[in-house]
């Protein structure tokens, strides 16, 4: 597989110019987590009102896959209800597990990450921010790393 099938242009764009990468003082929900496998660590903030996710931001460091996935995630879930966000998280995990057909209508820019499926070690990087978002919504706060090494 050629390198540019894994590192699509849109991934590199979100990596170099991450969207919503900022602190969110006063966020109702947040969660931090690290992936000891590759040193990625991420905190996700959620501003929620009336059952809707009105703003999502993240801070942290990591590889291009984890950072771009976090960046795209913040745009993909904003303005959605909790149920819709849960559905998105489930669908994204399905795509990363190779179980859900990744078409652009359903996934938008996130479809760029489907190349990661062929690199099992990197799937953890792509899913990290989504795990943290789910745990933030569940009120977990601090979570243990998911990939002990």
């Amino acid at each position, binding site marked *: 597989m050629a*390198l540019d099938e894994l*590192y699509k242009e849109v991934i590199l764009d979100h990596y*170099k110019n991450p969207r919503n990468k900022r602190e969110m003082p006063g966020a109702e929900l947040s969660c931090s987590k690290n992936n000891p496998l590759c*040193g990625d660590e991420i905190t996700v903030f959620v501003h929620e009102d009336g059952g809707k996710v009105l703003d999502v931001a993240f801070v942290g460091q*990591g*590889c291009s896959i984890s950072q771009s996935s976090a960046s795209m995630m913040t745009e993909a879930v904003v303005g959605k209800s909790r149920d819709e966000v849960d559905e998105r998280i489930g669908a994204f995990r399905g795509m990363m597990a190779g179980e859900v057909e990744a078409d652009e209508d359903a996934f938008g820019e996130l479809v760029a990450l489907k190349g990661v499926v062929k690199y099992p070690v990197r799937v953890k990087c792509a899913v990290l921010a989504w795990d943290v978002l789910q745990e933030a919504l569940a009120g977990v706060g601090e979570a243990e790393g998911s990939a002990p*090494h």
Partner: protein
Amino acid sequence: MAVTERRGAGTLDAKAIKAEFPILERISHGKPLVYLDSANTSQKPRAVIDTITEYYERHNANLYRAVYELAEEATAMFEGARTTLARFIGAPDPSTVVFTRGTTESINLIANAWGRRFLREGDEILFTEMEHHSNIVPWQLVAEATGAVTRLVPIEDDGTLDPSKVEALLTGRTKVLAITGQSNVLGTMPALERLTASAHAAGAIVVVDGAQLVPHNPVDVATLDVDFLTISGHKMLGPTASGGLYGRLELLDAMDPFLGGGEMIMEVYPDHSTFKAPPHKFEAGTMNIAEEIGLAAAIEYLEALGMENVRNHERELTAYGLEALGAAGATVFGPKDPELRGGALSFWYKDIHPHDLAQVLDQEGVCVRPGHHCAQVLMRRLGVPATTRASFYVYNTKEDVDALVAALEKAGEFFGA
């Protein structure tokens, strides 16, 4: 042993050596394989692969008790491997060499069989900031169980270990100095002879993690005067799950067994058992027979090369690698003087995350290791989440370093760094 034709003028003919490793002929992602991850695991020469095959095709049987020819052959080969390993590290007596699956198991054996017997509440265990997790975690576990406490020895900003920092922490309470012989991240080689003398003067034993030291340097436990040295076979051309430990005989005698079971006992009664003398006291159940016999073949291969020559070859490659990586814009961690270090070059390159970097290098056929290298304490000290590490062995050439640098430059272009 004592094959001398490959002994060159104090160094190695790495190209000729490379041809004796079948895997190094393969193509990866359409490119010739450039294997720079020997600190992780080494590749195996044809001689080792053939020895394992021959063992299973001609000699396989369980050890010691069976009375047929195969078992006698297998036993002689296995005990012969012990003699070979003892000779390789300068151990005075094969009985001082215990076979294990490698350094992790060896350190756990020492921490449990020696530590739980002899450590008391308030006793102190010293280890350094650059230890591998396998020379930290077993000591934390035994400290928890015995009430002993662990103390961290700091390293210097340049990645060296100042012996006086160890000596400043040695007190009458210090019972163990657990220290690497060569850092798997920084390549740093502590002053073991001085540190051993100082630790002994304070009444502590010295446990050397030899995972990176033994494969790359001439080692003589009698000269070093260490109490324990742990050995990883798969990092020195041998099979995975081969290796062992050297222990001072009086310590091995006084220690408890580690695993209980068959082969390590003299007599078993319903309420108690008696145990064999070292080393068999520590070898319960069916051992890794083929692996240790394969390790002996690896040692004979290294002895034929000459360990002084191995060290000289790697020192040259390390000097070349330090310069080439520096010129390419990489920051290399650890000592800059090749005399003070081994050939594990951990670096940070143009703010490209190590995992991204290693992925691009893989596409170029270059195998390196990204991550924390089982040294999270050290990563925090260095202030990085992870590094990329290239590491050398007998089959590596300057062309391999050139291929690494070319691949780095490609990664730099790709990520626009």
